[in-house]
């Protein structure tokens, strides 16, 4: 993993496989960075980070495109029949394809125009799918390895922590809102003091 991070300079004896592994890992890394932007911003108060979230998200999709096109154009050399067989027969490829299909609409609707067209709330709901992509993408990685599951599990743990952070946040906000809406004046005062 560390060596993979040094770049695409030395692809070794099987460059096709090396390309697939590295582009796949960078997809997951950028996905993790994208998801970490909001928690990191909130914890550090660096509001400026919000501006880079879309860029990291698009980097994720860029590497997913590289990953898939390496598989299609280099590994299988556009042998559509064989690739269809691969997708049907091997579940790790199926779940990888599903991940790409989830990421695609997110990339397409990443522009300001689409945020406006969908409306903030619907846009946010759609883009919560990135958590699904994070999990399916990691399962794709986990199922692709033989026995060396350490790194896939580390990615899974990372995503679960990031997802957990947002879930806890959501639950807290919802509880606070419920308290504000249904609570007595005294409770409201207390929640205002603590919240």
């Amino acid at each position, binding site marked *: 993993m560390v060596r993979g991070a040094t770049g695409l300079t030395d692809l070794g*004896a099987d460059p096709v496989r090396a390309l697939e592994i590295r582009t796949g890992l960078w997809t997951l890394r950028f996905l993790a960075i994208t998801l970490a932007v909001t928690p990191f911003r909130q914890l550090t108060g660096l509001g400026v980070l919000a501006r880079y979230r879309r860029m990291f998200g698009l980097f994720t999709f860029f590497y997913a495109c590289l990953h898939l096109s390496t598989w299609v154009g280099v590994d299988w050399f556009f042998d559509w029949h064989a690739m269809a067989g691969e997708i049907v027969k091997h579940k790790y490829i199926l779940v990888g394809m599903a991940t790409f299909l989830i990421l695609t609409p997110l990339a397409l609707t990443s522009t300001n125009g689409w945020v406006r067209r969908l409306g903030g709330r619907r846009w946010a709901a759609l883009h919560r799918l990135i958590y699904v992509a994070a999990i399916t993408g990691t399962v794709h990685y986990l199922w692709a390895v033989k026995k060396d599951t350490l790194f896939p599990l580390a990615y899974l743990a990372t995503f679960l922590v990031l997802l957990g952070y947002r879930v806890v946040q959501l639950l807290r906000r919802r509880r606070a809102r419920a308290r504000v809406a249904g609570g007595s004046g005294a409770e409201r005062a207390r929640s205002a003091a603590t919240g």
Partner: protein
Amino acid sequence: MIIRRPDPIPSSEITSEREYLGRRDFIRAAGLAAAAALAAPSALVACTERGESSGGDVDQTADDKPNSFEQITSYNNYYEFGTDKEDPKANSGAFKPLPWTVQVDGLCRKPGKYAFEDLLKPQQTVERVYRLRCVEAWSMVIPWQGIPLADMLRRFEPQPSAKYVAFTTVVRPSEMPGQRGGFQVLDWPYVEGLRMDEAMHPLTLMATGLYGKPLPNQNGAPIRLIVPWKYGFKGIKSIVRIAFVDRAPPTTWSLANPNEYGFYANVNPNVDHPRWTQASERRIGEFRRRPTLMFNGYADQVASMYAGMDLRANF
């Protein structure tokens, strides 16, 4: 001067479309092969016989050009040194393959501890250029030196009750980083096994060298098994124990994942692994996939051993 012709292509391969369309490549390769024969006859021949052990001809086709020493020694699966392909080369520097002893026991008349040199001395070394097909759907062509396993096993005088041969790899956490630490990928030692007739087959080799050099550590020094019609993981490395047994011995990968790896592990393009298609493979150094051959192209020599067996059930 004798110009060696490449080995004839078996009739089963002559008329395939791929071969027909690639005829120019074939001619080019044949020319190269002829040139190579002048330079280094031993490297070209698939199976050089010296001594009494007869291997039969290996149907090495003209496009089976041996991989480079660099490729063979820098892209390895040897989990005792790490799980990445580059790990064995990077992490095997501290491994000391000599002195080496192999313990022979079980159902044979001459059990004992054999020093590496004593194991080799009475035998004739042979050269074999074999295809190696990994279960991960990549392959290489490797010029090995070694001793036919049958020649070695006969010396130990196996008893008729011996139906299988079990092999064990060394355990040396101090020299093998993959055997230390909290996260162990497999249970050590690595173990493998062959049916007696597979072990005695003339193609089965105990390799001690490649490209005329002693086996590098990352390739299984000082002595490893080569069974060219089986997936690479059957080729157990750095062997310290050979045991004659009456029942199929446990094998590491089928212990680790019985749904994905069987005892036989014969190369079979018709039986897919859950993760990798086995119908095609990428030869290291090549760009396009090539079809995988039944029994890795050694069907003429070995298929009869499995006559009547359901190869889908006995994968």
